[in-house]
C-alpha cells in the first residue's frame, strides 16, 4: 500500500512526549514522571496485598492483625481518605497550575503568529501579514514564542508536535491556538492526532526551528512569487502544469495556476518532503508520485494524470526549480 513509505531522513528529533524541547512540554514531562511514581506506589500496594492474600491463604486474620473492623477501616482509609488527599493534590497542581503552561498564548504576547489549516490530508500554513503560503513544513525561529492558530477546511484534525507542546483540535468554524517554542535548532515531526479518514496515517507535519536570520530569509523567499522555468525542459514542464490540469488544484503564485484544492506549490522545491511529509522530496520520489499518486498514499485527492514519461520528467524539472 504505502510502498516506498520511508521516514524522511532529515529528521533529528522523534515524536517522544518525554523529550521536551519547550518549557510547556517540559512541564508535561515533569507531570508524567511524578504521576508515574505515584502510580507505581499504588500498583505496588495492590500487588503486595494480592500476593499476601495468596501467601496467607490458610490464615484468617489480616497480615498485620485485626479482623472485620480493621479491614473496613482500611477500606475507608485507603479507598476514600487516601484518594481524596492524593487526588486533591494532583488536581491543584496539574489542573490549576501546570495547565497554565499549555494554555493558548495571550493575544499579542508572541512575536509571530502562524495560521495552520487542516485539509484531508495535508497542512496548509500561512504567515499573516506575509504572502507566504506553504504546506506540511512549518518554519519557526528558534527560542521564540510562536502562536499557532489552527482551524480546518473540512473534517476535524488535530495538530500535534509531541516534543514541543500539547495538541489542539482543528474544528470546523472554530479556531484553537497553541504556543510553539523550540529551544534548539532542528526538525520536529508531528502528526494529525484525530482520525480524519482514509489517509489519517499520512497526515504528517514537520516543524523546522532555525536561527532567526535563516528563518527571516526563508520567510522572505516563501513570500515571493515563483520563478519561471529556466531551460527548455523546465519551460515545457511549466506549460504542462498550466495546461494539463495541475493548475486546477494547485496554486503557483506568479503564474495563472490558482487552484485551491491541493497544497500551494510556489516554492515546493524548498520543502524536504511531499504528500503530507509522507515521502522525501527528491527527483525519484517526485517522479514516482506524479506517475501514480495513489500508490504511496491511496485515496488522496490527486488523480492519476494522463502524462507520458517525458512529460513527467519535464514537470519534475520545472517543480524542482521552484525553490
Amino acid at each position, binding site marked *: 500500500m504505502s510502498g516506498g513509505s520511508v521516514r524522511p531522513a532529515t529528521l533529528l528529533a522523534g515524536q517522544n512526549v518525554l523529550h521536551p524541547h519547550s518549557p510547556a512540554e517540559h512541564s508535561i514531562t515533569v507531570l508524567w514522571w511524578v*504521576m508515574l511514581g505515584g*502510580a507505581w506506589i499504588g500498583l505496588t500496594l*495492590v500487588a503486595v496485598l494480592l500476593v499476601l492474600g495468596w501467601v496467607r491463604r490458610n490464615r484468617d*486474620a489480616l497480615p498485620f492483625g485485626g479482623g472485620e473492623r480493621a479491614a473496613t477501616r482500611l*477500606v475507608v482509609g485507603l479507598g476514600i481518605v487516601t484518594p481524596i488527599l492524593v487526588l486533591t493534590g494532583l488536581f491543584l497542581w496539574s489542573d490549576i497550575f501546570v495547565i497554565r503552561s499549555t494554555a493558548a498564548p495571550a493575544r499579542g504576547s508572541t512575536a509571530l503568529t502562524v495560521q495552520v489549516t487542516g485539509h484531508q490530508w495535508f497542512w496548509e500554513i500561512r504567515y499573516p501579514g506575509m504572502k507566504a503560503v506553504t504546506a506540511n513544513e512549518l518554519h519557526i525561529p528558534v527560542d521564540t514564542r510562536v502562536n499557532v492558530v489552527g482551524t480546518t477546511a473540512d473534517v476535524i484534525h488535530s495538530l500535534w508536535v509531541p516534543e514541543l507542546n*500539547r*495538541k489542539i*483540535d482543528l474544528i470546523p468554524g472554530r479556531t484553537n491556538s497553541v504556543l510553539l517554542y523550540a529551544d534548539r535548532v532542528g526538525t520536529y515531526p508531528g502528526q494529525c492526532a484525530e482520525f480524519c479518514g482514509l489517509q489519517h*496515517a499520512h497526515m504528517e507535519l514537520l516543524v523546522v526551528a532555525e536561527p532567526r536570520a535563516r528563518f527571516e530569509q526563508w520567510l522572505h523567499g516563501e513570500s515571493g512569487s515563483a520563478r519561471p522555468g529556466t531551460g527548455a525542459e523546465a519551460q515545457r514542464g511549466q506549460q504542462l502544469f498550466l495546461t494539463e490540469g495541475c493548475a486546477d488544484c494547485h496554486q503557483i503564485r506568479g503564474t495563472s495556476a490558482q487552484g485551491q484544492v491541493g497544497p500551494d506549490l510556489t516554492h515546493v522545491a524548498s520543502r524536504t518532503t511531499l504528500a503530507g511529509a509522507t515521502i522525501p522530496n527528491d527527483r525519484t520520489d517526485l517522479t514516482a508520485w506524479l506517475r501514480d499518486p495513489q500508490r504511496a498514499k491511496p485515496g488522496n485527492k490527486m488523480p492519476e494524470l494522463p502524462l507520458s514519461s517525458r512529460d513527467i520528467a519535464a514537470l519534475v524539472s520545472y517543480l524542482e526549480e521552484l525553490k
Partner: protein
Amino acid sequence: MTLEVLPPLARRRAQRLGLIWEERPGLLGWLTTVDHKRIGLLYFFTTLVFFGAGGIEALLIRTQLAGPNGTVLSPEAFNQAMTMHGVTMIFLFVIPMTVGAFGNYLLPLMLGARDLAFPRLNALSYWLFLGSGLFLYVGVLLGKAPDCGWFCYAPLNTKEYDPGLNADFYALGLIFNGLSTTAGALNFIVTIFKLRAPGMSFNRMPLFVFAMLAVSLSLIFALPPLTTNLVFLELQRNVGFHFFDVAHGGDALLWQHLFWLFGHPEVYIIILPAMGIATSIIPTFARRKMVAFPLVALAELLVAFIGFGVWGHHMFATGLPVGALIFFAAASMMVVIPSAIQIFAWLFTVNLGRPDFRAPLLFIGGFIALFVIGGLSGIMFAAIPFDQATTDTYFVVAHFHFIIFGAAVFPILGGMYYWFPKVTGRMYHERWAQLSFWVTFLGTLLTFFPMHVVGLLGMTRRVYTYHHGFGWDAYNLSETVGAFVLAAGLILIFANLLWSRFRGVPSGPDPFYGGTLEWATTSPPPPYNFPVIPTVSSPYPNWDRADREEDLRRLEQGVLALEHDHETLATTVRDGYADVVLHMPSESHWPIVVALSLTVVFVMLLTTHFVVAGIFVGLAGLVLGAWHVREPAAE
C-alpha cells in the same frame, strides 16, 4: 435439591411446576422461548460469535501493524476493521454478554424469582439484539462497514466525507441495538425492584444485583443522547438537516458532547457488571462475606452516577473553556473514589478470608491487577495538560484496553468458569482452566502494556500504517505477538468449556458453596428455577442453612410453591415484603415477529424507503397489540 431426594408431597408439587413451566422442545422452542435462562444462553452463544468476529478484526489490525509499512490491509479495510472491532466489542459483545447473558441468566436466580418481570419483552430484547448485530455485519459482508471509528466524529460521518452506506450502517445499527438494550434495562430495573424473594430488602440484595441495577439505570439515561445524536446524523445524511454543518449554523462539536454524554457512562456500563461478577466470585472463594458490604453497594451506584459528569474529559483538546475543563477533570478524579473503595474491599476480603485460588478467583486476581493499571493511567488523563499531550495516542488505547479487556472481560471469563457448573451441571477442568488464565493474562500484558510506551513515543491511534524510525517497531511487534498469545488463551478457555460440557464431572447444585440463591437450586436449574419461592434473611442467603431447610418444609406444606399456575411472587420495593402473586406470560412467537418487522424497518431506512419503513412500523405496532390481546389462558 434434585427431585428424587424430595419427600413425596414436595416431589409432586415440583413435578406439577415442571409441567406448567416446561416450554416446547426443539428449534421452535428456542424461537418462542420466554425463559430467562434460555434467552440468556441465546445471548451467550450469539455474543460469543460476535466476540470471535471482533477478535478476528483485532488480529487483522495487529497483523497489519506488526511492522512498519504493513500491506495486509488497505487503508479502507483497516478503517473498517478498526471501527467494527470497537463497535462489535462494545455493542455486540461486552454489553450483551454481561447484561444480556449473565444478567438474564442470573438475576432471577439470585433474586429467587421464576423469571424476569417481562419475559416476552426479554425475548424481544434478544431478537432485536440479534437483528441489530446481523444488520451491522451485513455492512461488513457488503464491504460497506462503518469506517469512521467507533465514535465516528462529525463532520467526517456526514455524506460529504463518507458518501457510502458505511455511516448509515453505523447510525441505524446502533439505534436498533439501543432499542434492545433499553428494553432489557427497563426489564431489569422492574425485576430488581419487584421480584426479589420475600425478605430480600434492599440492603440484602446481592452486590451483583446492585451492579446490574446501576448498569440498567445508567443505560436508560445514557442511551437517549446517543440515539438523539444518531437520529440527527441520519436526518442530516438523508433528509437534508444541518445539525453538524457549520456553514448552515450547525456545530460539529454537538456530536462530541452528545456522544460522550453517552460514551463515558457507557464505560461504567461496561465495567460495572464485571465488578458485580468480582463481588460474586470473591466471597465464594474467600469463604466469607464481602468486607464493607454497604460501602461497596453504594460505590457501585455512585460509579454510575458520577459517570454522567465526566464526558468532557474526552474533549480536553477541543478548546472548551478552561472552567469546563477543570469541572470535568475534578469529576473524573472523583470517580476514582468509588472504584478505590471496591478494589480495597475486594483485596481485604481476600486477605481476611481463606481464599481458594481456583480459576475463577485467579481471573478476578488478574482483573484487579489489570483494573488498577488501567485505573492509574486513567487518573493521569484527569491531569489536563498530560491528557492534552497523550489523548488520541496509543497511550489511550493502552488505558482503555486495560479497562475494557482487563477489567471487563477478565471477570466475564472468570464468571464463565464460575457459573459453568450451574448452567451445565458439570465441572470445568480445573488445571487447564488455571493454565488458560496464565496464558490469557500474559497475552494481555504483552499486547496492551507496550501500547503505553509507543503512545508516549508519539504513535497516534487509528493509523493504518507507520514509518520505521520512531522507535515503535519492536513494541508493535510485541503487541502483535501478544495478541496471538491472547487468542490462544481464549481458545484454551472455550475448548475447556466445550470439552467439559460433555465430559466434565457432574457438579451437583453447589460445587463452590456459593452464598447467593442461584446455588440453592439444581444445576442446571429447572424451568421454574425454584420449586418454592425462597425466603431471605441476609445478603448471603445460601449460607443461611436454616432458611434453606425451611424452604424444603414449605415446599412440602405448599407455602409459596405457587404450583397451580404460571406464577411468581412480587414483593414490595424497599423491604421485600410479599406483595402480590403475578401471573407470568407463556412462550410466544410475537417477540420474534416484532423484531423481524423492525429489522425490515431498519433495512428500509438504510435504503431510504421511508414509506415502506413506515408501513412496517405500523405492522410492528399491530403485532404488539396482538401480543397483548391474545394472552393464552393458563395451562
